[in-house]
């Protein structure tokens, strides 16, 4: 008789990208079992981008969170907080156990990120603020002669906020090639498709006409993420926007491409089904 082998999962940092992404999505689903639910669809859609940024792009160190030359990240689509918390936890900014407190009374982990959460540079939640913040940071880094960059993750529906374009114009005017906007282009907002609500296309052309270098990629493709973020800025002297084409609810068939995945509370039955969906697509 052979003894049952004990499975010890390797440290997060040593896992391949897809396994890491699976772990992040598991956390997101778990958070959606909280009584208040969670913004599941938009968290799952940007999970790969966030994971890639925090593990392979951003020059930040949880042990030295105030280092002046660090890169800054702004989650302008603050409702994707569950994805951010999961990534912050797995990259050493937060204890992983703390994720279980998500939206519980007394927790630091609110439905939208608070500034007292380690690793959160700016609290967000009201859409249309993040790109101005990133522009200010990038401008400061430039004027101070620091090598740091500012990354801002925006929702696509968020682009309907006029203040985004105020920021886009000024960032281009100042030639901030140390500023990178990423648009989580999942195509859905609360009432349905972005194009049916207030159309955003031709999106890349719009950004280009605002003076940005625009790159369109599959926001779930590890190789595309790797290639794009390793080659920043896309154009010297211009801010870069990465339009990450994604699927709302990505990884969980129950939610994929469904507007109802926007904000969901998972009861035990739904949670089991969602986890099963996630596992079945694990290698996809």
């Amino acid at each position: 008789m052979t003894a049952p082998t004990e499975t010890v999962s390797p440290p997060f940092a040593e896992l391949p990208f897809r396994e890491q992404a699976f772990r992040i999505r598991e956390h997101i689903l778990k958070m959606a079992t909280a009584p208040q639910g969670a913004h599941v669809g938009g968290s799952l859609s940007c999970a790969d981008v966030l994971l890639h940024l925090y593990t392979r792009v951003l020059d930040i160190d949880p042990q030295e969170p105030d280092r002046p030359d660090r890169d800054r990240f702004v989650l302008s689509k603050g409702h994707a907080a569950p994805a951010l918390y999961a990534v912050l936890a797995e990259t050493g900014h937060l204890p992983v156990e703390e994720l279980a407190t998500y939206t519980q009374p007394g927790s630091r982990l609110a439905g939208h990120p608070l500034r007292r959460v380690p690793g959160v540079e700016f609290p967000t939640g009201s859409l249309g603020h993040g790109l101005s913040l990133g522009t200010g940071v990038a401008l400061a880094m430039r004027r101070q002669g620091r090598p740091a960059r500012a990354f801002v993750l925006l929702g696509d529906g968020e682009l309907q906020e006029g203040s985004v374009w105020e920021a886009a114009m000024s960032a281009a005017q100042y030639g901030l090639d140390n500023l990178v906007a990423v648009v989580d282009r999942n195509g859905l907002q609360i009432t349905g498709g972005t194009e049916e609500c207030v159309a955003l296309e031709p999106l890349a052309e719009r950004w280009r006409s605002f003076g940005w270098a625009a790159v369109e990629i599959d926001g779930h493709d590890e190789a595309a993420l790797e290639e794009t973020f390793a080659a920043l800025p896309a154009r010297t002297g211009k801010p870069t926007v990465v339009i990450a084409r994604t699927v709302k609810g990505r990884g969980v068939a129950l939610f994929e491409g469904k507007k109802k995945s926007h904000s969901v509370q998972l009861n035990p039955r739904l949670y089991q089904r969602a986890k099963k969906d996630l596992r079945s697509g694990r290698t996809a």
Partner: protein
Amino acid sequence: MSEVITETTAGTTAGASAGTPARVPAPGAATAEQSWAERYAVPARDAYRRTLLDLARVDPRIFCVDSDMGGLETLFGDALPEQYVNVGIAEANLLGVSAGLAHSGLLPYANTIASFAAARACEQLKVDVAGNNLPVRVVVTHAGVSAGHYGPTHHAVEDIAIVRTLPHLTVVVPCDAAEAEAAVRATVDLPGPLYVRLGRAATPLVNDAPYDFRLGEARLLREGEDVTLVATGPYPVVMALEAAELLARQGHSARVLNMHTIKPLDTAALGRAARETGGIVTVEDHVRVGGLGAAVCEAVAEDHHCPVRRIGVPDGYLDHVAGERELLEYAGVHPEAIAAAALGLARGR
């Protein structure tokens, strides 16, 4: 009492009267030889701008963030281009960019019109500036009805009510050019956010000598025992002093406080006024709801038994065409009304 003075700021000449002698020194050109009165015979805005440039020359943390106000691009931008940013006509972006600059260790002075900061970009002020407790200095002009004939789109008679509810935000209302300079110098190292409320054209010089501006401490302009007049803003302070004169002629002694800091409010001075004079009249170039008068009522009601009368702009859209002082008088803010309110309190005792 008010003088018509040519505006010195480039790009804004609409308020100037033809033929007015250009005796106002150019911003940044004030000299030690100038008398106190000469140095400050300028709009508070110009005194602030001159001061900002002085301070920025020796402090590279200080940034001037412009929103196409006119004048700053030459005065400040030409002198210190590396510390100047113009985001254009985009006030939400102005405050967001300023928050980003402050988060990175700089001291941005965000320049816009009162209504555009407090009303248009209120959410950026609330979330990105005040909520984050960042050292952004939001310096606004055209406050109250100082935009005069520009009309109600450019008036800001509700901004104090809005901004004093925002977290961490210090709110300062200088009463003249001298106090604008003193207040800006005194708050350079304030760790949190600041809202400085300025007018547009020149207003009478209230302060006749340098004084030690103390943030959060009301300035006693006139001692008195029968009633206290608490005023904020250029003409309200001037009118309170004029009302005190009217009252003196009728045998009543009125204390006059310049409440230059709305938040934090000097509740100690209000307590002394309540105890020692038994009645308070507030005066402001702001609606009677939510501004200085309301703040004083809140403070007094909690700790003192003292009647308060509020002189301010009544509810309604002020679509009358006039200059700053005339508009206030049209709205019922004038020395006679202040004196009458004070007499009412005195009689009631």
